[in-house]
């Protein structure tokens, strides 16, 4: 145990200027972390690209404008040429534009899955953590059932159950898997909060139950959930690719998504590796960005790591 150091930290903290909330001080620590900055930069570029991509893309990503250069019979696809930086894909669409625009759909999948998973988890976790008793039991049994399958396999199974696969079902499959994770995470910290002195103090003050839950328990339980969300963003993007790979993804590829682009070209991996490599690299970089952010965030928010 780095004794004196932790004490020193405490003293440092006290010397800080007025009115620094916990979040603000966590942010202060984050700003100093180069790893976080790398992650944040990656994500920043990714988000900006995805928002602007429809205007940045030199070509329409859904129009097979180079189809005359596609010859399936000889496994030929359009090579890079003026106006088409990376050539065309299997259907003669501009590959570079698809990569660019793909960032948008990828962001939608990641954010969508995270939001749904988060919302479901928040509802279940809050119910279980705030009410306890039989509600807790019921919620946790549901969570148990969901957790008794490895998560990716559960996502595959859920995706396979939709009669009509689409972008939305992909998001749903990936997000449902996250619900129990969020729920348990939240329940755990809510339960801890329930027994914490400051919640007791609020109860003793006569603060209403609802206010205690939403003003004290929930906000103080959110840190691990926020961290998890960041990590889920990465997972969702990777899992969406796995779904596509298994033919469980969004079959409609007019609006491209990286995972789908990667999963769809498995048959030509050996002959046109660049069709897989580009989206794969994009996915890896973005997933890494989110993970870096999540991990540094975890460190910054974890009281144990404040040393």
């Amino acid at each position, binding site marked *: 145990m780095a004794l004196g150091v932790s004490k020193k930290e405490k003293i440092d903290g006290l010397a800080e200027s007025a009115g620094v909330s916990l979040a603000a001080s966590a942010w202060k620590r984050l700003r100093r972390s180069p790893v976080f900055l790398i992650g944040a930069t990656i994500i920043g570029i990714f988000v900006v690209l995805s928002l602007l991509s429809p205007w940045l893309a030199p070509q329409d990503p859904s129009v097979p404008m180079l189809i005359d250069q596609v*010859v*399936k*019979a000889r496994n030929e696809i359009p090579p890079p040429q003026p106006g088409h930086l990376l050539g065309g894909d299997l*259907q003669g669409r501009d590959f570079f534009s698809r990569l660019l625009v793909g960032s948008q759909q990828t962001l939608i999948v990641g954010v969508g899955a995270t939001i749904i998973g988060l919302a479901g988890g928040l509802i279940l976790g809050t119910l279980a953590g705030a009410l306890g008793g039989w509600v807790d039991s019921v919620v946790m049994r549901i969570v148990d059932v969901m957790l008794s399958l490895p998560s990716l396999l559960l996502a595959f199974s859920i995706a396979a159950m939709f009669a009509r696969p*689409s972008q939305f079902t992909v998001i749903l499959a990936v997000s449902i898997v996250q619900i129990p994770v969020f729920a348990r995470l939240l329940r755990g910290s809510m339960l801890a909060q329930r027994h914490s002195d400051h919640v007791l103090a609020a109860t003793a003050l006569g603060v209403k139950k609802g206010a205690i839950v939403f003003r004290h328990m929930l906000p103080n339980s959110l840190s691990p959930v926020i961290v998890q969300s960041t990590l889920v963003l990465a997972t969702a993007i990777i899992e969406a690719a796995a779904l596509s790979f298994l033919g469980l993804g969004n079959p*409609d*590829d007019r609006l491209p998504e990286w995972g789908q682009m990667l999963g769809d070209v498995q048959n030509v991996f050996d002959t046109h590796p660049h069709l897989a490599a580009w989206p794969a690299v994009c996915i890896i970089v973005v997933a890494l960005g989110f993970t870096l952010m999540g991990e540094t965030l975890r460190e910054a928010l974890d009281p144990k790591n404040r040393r």
Partner: protein
Amino acid sequence: MVHSVTARRRWVAAIGFLSVSALALSGCAQSQRDSGGGGKEGGTLTFGAAGAPKLFDPFYATDGETFRVARQMYEGLVGFKPGTAEVEPALATKYEPSADGKTWTFTLKEGVKFHDDTDFNAEAVCFNFERWYNQKGAGQSDAVSQYWLDNFGGFKDTPDKPSLYKSCTAKDAKTAVIELNEVTSQFPSVLGFTSFSISSPTALKQYDADNVQAAGDAFTYPAYANEHPTGTGPFKFGKYDKANNTVELVKNDAYHGTKAKLDKIVFKIIPDETARKQALKAGDIDGYDLPNAADWAGLKTDGFNVAIRPAFNVFYLGINQKNNPKLADLKVRQALMYAINREQLVKSQLPEGAKVATQFMPDTVNGYNKDIKAVGYDAAKAKSLLAEAGATDLTLKFYWPSEVTRPYMPSPKDLFGAISGDLQAAGIKLEVVTKPWNGGYLTDVDNGIPDLFLLGWTGDNGTAHNWVGTFFGRTDNRFNTGVSPWGKTLADALAKANSEPNEGERTKQYEEINKKIMDEYLPAIPISHSPPALVFKSDVKGVVPSPLTDEKFGPASKG
């Protein structure tokens, strides 16, 4: 790599010999390939199959993987000329219809014996026909006796569903007379289907062949279908090794015709297409079916023999007239045809040898109308036709299937991409729906939910009825042709042609129908015929690619 495997096998054989007695109970499998054989005679051909055969009784078979294995062991009364869809004699040396076309006399080949050493004769033929006609319970299911139901109709105890088949009489040992209830162009070519191969009556009885049970969501089959298929073909059943996913057939030394050159055929089940390719390259298999069109060129370069089958299928854009009244307008349907750049699509998306379809059957089918010319791509024309029909603001529900490849549709997604691009360019708005082939697509298409859909057909035989008859022979079909007045006309015309006993007249009628379909009705838009292929190592000879995928390995040799 190949070398080390070979060397190792000899070594194992020695050890295995010693350990066999000790491990007799474990059901161990010995080295299954003997690569020592050379020359044209003998040897083992290992063929990469995409799936496991469901069973070995051809009558109950419905899928290609099952037929592939069965057709090496069985023969029918008639067969198809190698490489064509033309009927030729097989177990029957001669067959003649009566004047009314309802009574057929088959003269049987003599000296033919089943694999169980019993005699093939007219009685055996009639036994087989009666067996088929007398299916009970689960045996009557569509999923089991599909080919009988499709081609002969009902069974003996289904009076509400009459059968084409009436009776079979063994006039003498080598003459069987079959009576039909009505005339059809299909007969006797249907007897060339592997389903209607002749089995040994003794074995059928001994192994309880008709005992099919529906269990849960599937069927279970008797011992005959699983372990004791007994036909007359050049190969006999060896074994089905489920642990290793291989089916083994051995040479029938008592074959009545030219004996097989190979000692053994091993069908090795490799579900993954890429894996089959790699297995071929690694020398683990000698050939496989349905190589990805994109790989053909590469395989050829690597010295493999890509055997392209004559295209015997049709890929079409299905139109359902029911939901959108605009689609009942011929102009709109024609606009769709003009809008699609079929030339381009065939060139870019389909394998070598694919052709634009001018009608709903390939040119090898009787009744193909040579005079029909493919309508060229003309987006402007499409637009003006739509305008004429007052359908400038057309929105169509366009279905395409995921998770499937079909010989006529190697990559539905890419085909959809090309077609939808063309349609949109013509100003048609699309509401795209994708469903898994076996997870709702077929059901929805059958239930008439889409406006446009992608589908196709692989022919069973060379009769026109098998094509246009199947598509439009009734009015409540997938295209809902009954919505338009001509739907009934078309169905009637098809029924009439089918029951025309005179072949020349029949052909003429079909040619006319085809012309009308394309000019006046246009119930759907034929797009292409694309050839599937097989690929073999260069030392494999003698397998003739068949439009019906009716490849016989009897004449094949290796090395």
